[in-house]
């Protein structure tokens, strides 16, 4: 189960994570709907690009620009949060959406917890795989912590001061 479009849904994508003995150019990519590491995509591009259904995931040390020119090939792009406090994934998501114009599913994987959900959704994530020990329905609640925001981001391109008439009502 994952969270997608603000609801809990079934999901049949598999995330391929490399073990220590796996090399990106030789690891066997299972058939079916697989989200492969960026390094595997880069190393096995010629064979993988023929697949009808493919996803790719980025480590937090990688950048959105590494996918430039390729983003249309993927049904899913995922960004890994090795620790929830590693905030690079937020800027990676922002770049994918704002700079590269990625319109497809953007999935947060790794240490995805309830209390980061609101910000994750703001920077363009629309799918979330919570850490397995957490109750996914509890995590879902984090999406609605706030009903208004000051600044623009991916979810709301216009800052508050341009959207509403502000000021103290007398």
């Amino acid at each position, binding site marked *: 189960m994952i969270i997608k479009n603000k609801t809990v849904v079934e999901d049949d994508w598999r995330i391929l994570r490399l073990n220590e003995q796996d090399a990106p150019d030789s690891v066997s990519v299972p058939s079916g709907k697989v989200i492969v590491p960026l390094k595997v995509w880069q190393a096995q591009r010629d064979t993988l690009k023929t697949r009808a259904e493919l996803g790719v995931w980025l480590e937090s040390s990688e950048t959105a620009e590494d996918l430039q020119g390729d983003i249309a090939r993927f049904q899913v792009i995922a960004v890994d949060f090795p620790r929830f406090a590693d905030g690079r994934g937020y800027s990676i998501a922002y770049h994918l959406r*704002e700079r590269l114009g990625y319109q497809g599913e953007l999935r947060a994987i790794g240490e995805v917890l309830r*209390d980061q959900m609101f910000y994750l959704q703001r920077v363009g994530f629309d799918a979330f795989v919570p850490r397995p020990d957490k109750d996914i329905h509890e995590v879902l609640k984090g999406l609605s912590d706030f009903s208004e925001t000051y600044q623009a981001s991916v979810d709301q391109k216009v800052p508050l*001061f341009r959207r509403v008439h502000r000021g103290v009502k007398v």
Partner: protein
Amino acid sequence: MYRYDQFDHQMVAERVAQFRDQVRRRLSNELTEDEFRVLRLQNGLYMQIHAYMLRIAVPYGLLSAAQMRMFAHIARKYDRDYGHFTTRQNVQFNWIKLPDAPDILADLATVEMHATQTSGNCIRNITCDEFAGVAKDEIVDPRPYAEILRQWSTFHPEFAYLPRKFKFSMTGAMTDRAAIAVHDVGLQVVKNAQGEVGFRVLVGGGLGRTPVIGTEICAFVPWQHAITYLESIVRVYNEHGRRDNMYKARIKILVKEIGIEEFRRQVEADWKFTKDGPCTLTVEELERVAACFTAPSYATLADSDVAAAQPGNTAFANWLQRNVKPHKVSGYASVVLSLKKPGMAPGDATAQQMEAAAELAERFSFGELRITHEQNLVLADVRQADLFTLWQAATERDMATPNIGLLTDIISCPGGDFCSLANARSIPLARAIAACFDNFDFLHDIGELDLNISGCVNACAHHHIGHIGILGVDKDGEEWYQVSIGGAQGNTSSIGKIIGKSFKFGQIPEVIARLLQVYVDERFDDERFIDTVRRLGFEPFKAYVYATPVEDDAELAGPIYDLLKQGTPYELPYYSPRF
């Protein structure tokens, strides 16, 4: 001052509800401490030696009398009747119980305050010139911009988990009173040759383990582009700041490693996508916010010679000389209420003092106060004709010590008595120094001298930019103190140099006395201590301090000196008579 509208109120209320639920989940163990720590820090809640410490944001150091009264209320209801004003213009309470924290935030929300982003690896409270709006040397009032940036940075979704904390400081005056050169980003609001307003932007300044003076990244960013430009700086930092070593994670290290030219190139490459986009500031928004910072209704008054009206009153004259500052409107002055009475912990105020300060603000200064980064309070708009009455009232509450800018106006962190990061105690040392140098004639003769005491290398008391800086260090579990000289804040900021081997607590007053002796012997007429150090270099000072052994005055800290030898953590805070 800025007033919340429905949107501000709503967001703060939702923040309180969010944190209340997070505390509930922590208390029921649904959240682990590792998961909760980051969340509580972003709500200002630290775990210290004795209890939780709550740091409340005072945006750009400006607050109303009602807000100050709320601090007194919090001190009484949830703490031990006092609070501590900090070098980042915030206030801290030391004895908070976790289940109370959401209630305190709810109380704060009723006076349009919060503790959001006062800690954690996010954009912190933006500090500002404490004389903003009233200083004679001001070019542009920075407060509307500080408020606009406060809103931009509050709950910014992309920048809540930066490599490390991120501090802005801002001034709009000729003289920098906000230490902008030692912040991650320092902003000077300026006008260009055409009279247009913009920002001179410094980046990569900071203190801590690696003190660095900030470098100019842009001489003039037009005000309309402030948000987009600063957002690009923080974005480049978020992506490329080091995360492998927390001591190398601040933006200053990134700027040093890749160089200012490359950093600037990356910022501008990012900025070109957002410049002129929807986040460009509008005249309407600037005017809406600026309307909150219009001048109060000053009376038309002439300047007067206040001292002459009280002939022979040297105590009042001393106070006028040290604690009263010029105002841009004739007939008015700004007053610094000293929280540095010798014997007290620097920056501490009791609930009674907070209430008294609120009352003085209402009586004499249009109901507003400021907190200075030197840990004092300011009444910015006082009629000169009221100064004598104000002085009498402030004296009654121990807030009129005439020592602003002098040796005993010591800047001090909470240190080993409270802080779990500290290597040594700061407050008892500040008290001991103040007790040793309590002769006002001597202090006035020495003149302007910044003395800063940090209990550890994190440099909360800005010891690197003290004319004399003292840093607590740990040597095999014992508390020692390193002394540096030649640091300075302001337009000619510099980082102090350590004079040599560190000292024991009981040696420090004698070391200071020796430094001052060299100064007194060598100074030209009106030369300040820092200027003599700059002219002579630090060798003569070092030579004199180490020429003969410095006695370790074991009596100095009083009868419980042995406590000082215990090393951290302590069973009991040593210093305060108030518990």
